[in-house]
């Protein structure tokens, strides 16, 4: 029992980081109807940048988030403007393949500059932890979780309480109607892509402290992200967050009780079990033509 509770705590904390990554993905999907197959490599890219900032300039990974978030925002928006703008209306599948190809290209570039050995960002406090009521709480994971909560909170505030947020929600609901009402859909989509990639920037920086990574770990992360998206219901932010925490907990409990080899797989089993009952995911809505 102690082991399960311990694993659950760890799972919830890491689930926060997954939630951060996946909600960016959900935002991009909601507004542009494109699955961002490059979200995982964006996080790895950010992890590498954070690694460089830490090892060469001594910048704390949590501080580097302040630099990485705007950088990745600009990067994401640029990708939308240069590559995706002309595709999303003609075919969401093409956009998906473009992002997939881009993920492979970025992986190649990262492998070129950083080589392929796995790295981990380890500032002095990586192995610190607190003991609360007999359970260990890792300092890094707790801070990562808090960072995720802060970023998700600000994202929620932007969506619900600003003019931009209203434009984002309107575009997600119906791009044509939003355009007719004076929303600049192209610009809103570029911003949504930027915000989505920026969450990968924030998540990547702390991810690099929790899990050793290299360019090839994008597949592992991607498979988790994609399963979270489907389980949560693609465009649903609350669904994504719930699914991410479920993934974190299932993965960590299975790793502790059975074997780490099967932890990723166990979540896929949960996913397929849910899909037999609800093909649209936990919180997704049925859309004509989309599902």
């Amino acid at each position, binding site marked *: 029992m102690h082991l399960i509770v311990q694993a659950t705590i760890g799972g919830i904390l890491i689930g926060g980081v997954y939630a951060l990554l996946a909600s960016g993905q959900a935002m991009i999907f909601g507004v542009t109807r494109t699955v961002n197959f490059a979200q995982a490599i964006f996080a790895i890219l950010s992890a590498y940048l954070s690694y460089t900032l830490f090892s060469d300039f001594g910048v704390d990974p949590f501080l580097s988030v302040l630099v990485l978030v705007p950088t990745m925002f600009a990067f994401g928006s640029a990708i939308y403007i240069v590559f995706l703008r002309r595709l999303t209306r003609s075919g969401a*599948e093409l956009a998906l393949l473009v992002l997939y190809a881009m993920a492979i290209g970025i992986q190649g570039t990262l492998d070129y500059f950083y080589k392929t050995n796995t790295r981990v960002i380890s500032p002095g406090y990586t192995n610190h932890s607190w003991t609360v009521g007999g359970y260990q709480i890792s300092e890094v994971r707790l801070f990562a979780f808090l960072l995720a909560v802060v970023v998700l909170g600000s994202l929620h505030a932007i969506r619900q309480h600003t003019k931009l947020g209203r434009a984002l929600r309107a575009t997600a609901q119906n791009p044509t109607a939003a355009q007719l009402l004076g929303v600049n859909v192209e610009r809103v989509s570029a911003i949504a892509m930027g915000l989505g990639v920026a969450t990968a920037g924030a998540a990547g920086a702390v991810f690099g402290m929790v899990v050793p990574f290299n360019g090839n770990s994008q597949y592992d992360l991607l498979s988790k992200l994609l399963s979270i998206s489907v389980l949560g219901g693609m465009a649903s932010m609350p669904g994504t967050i719930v699914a991410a925490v479920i993934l974190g907990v299932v993965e960590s409990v299975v790793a502790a009780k059975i074997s780490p080899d099967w932890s990723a797989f166990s979540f896929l089993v949960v996913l397929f079990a849910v899909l037999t009952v609800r093909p649209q995911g936990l919180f997704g809505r049925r859309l004509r033509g989309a599902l």
Partner: protein
Amino acid sequence: MTWLGRESRTRPGGALQAFAFLGALAVLPVVMGRHWQVNLLVFTLMYAGLASAWNLVGGYAGYAALGHGAFFGIGAYAMAIGTTHLGVGTGYRPFLLVLPIAVGTALAVVPIARLLLRTRAATFAVLSITVMFMVQTFAYNIRSLTHGSQGIAVPVPPFPFTTFERPFYYAMAILLALTVAVCWAVRSSQLGLALNAVRDDEDRARGLGVQTELVKLIAFSLSAGLTAAFGAVWAYYISYVFPGFAIDPLLSLGAILMAFLGGRHTLWGPVVGAALIVPAQQYFAYRYGASHLYLIAYAALFLIVIYLLPDGILPSTTQRLNRLRTRSRARTTPDLLPMEALNPRGESE
């Protein structure tokens, strides 16, 4: 022009095309007999077949399947396990396993395909790749059967050194011919029309009485079975399977790239695409190793194809030819309106 229309069923050149293709397949390894050349041909035919098989689902039905690497891997592992654990023997005998593997995979994927095909578009794409990751996890972790990350060494066949690649070449050639024949049969049957309807508007097709679930399932199952057959021959040829190689995301992506380059929805497009890309791919791998620069070149090629040739080579050229033809016809019969005035971009839908 139209997806099915003039090209395959009514054109008398169909039989001619088939004979020319089979003739070329039979003669090629004699003309290009060096080891590296035949090796290149083996991979070209394999990818031509994989891209054609993918086209059944990704092109004809319009379902962006990204996880065909899973079925390739299943075929490869079935061959490896068959030759090592079951003791089928060596030489030509393992080739006898190919057909049962293909049929077995085609049947085995039905339950999972039924589940996958309940979703559409992006969700389908995501789930299909998830299946690939699942199969990879199995390959890594069921160690008693797959030896995990050690991989399985398949016994090397005792073929004479000078013509070592030949049997594999002909195995691939037969499989490719079979795959193209299956595609052709699908296109010229009711099934092809139904798949076409699914691609255009699935809800309407179902409303009009097309058995959408069934036709999608048949296309998916055929596609998976054929993909597994190529995987089986590949495993015997390479004589080593390992989870990272046999179930490779790049393999599915490569096949998709070739189908796009040649022309999705066409019969010969994937073959043309493979004939262009595989030599370039092997050259890159030989020159730079299967490493970072190779990945970058791959991504760049993909982007070039999608942005410069979104319809693929074959549809673009047929469109141009058709336009030339209509133009000359309009010149000889001036009382008819030129087709282009009615349909300026030559679109068929």
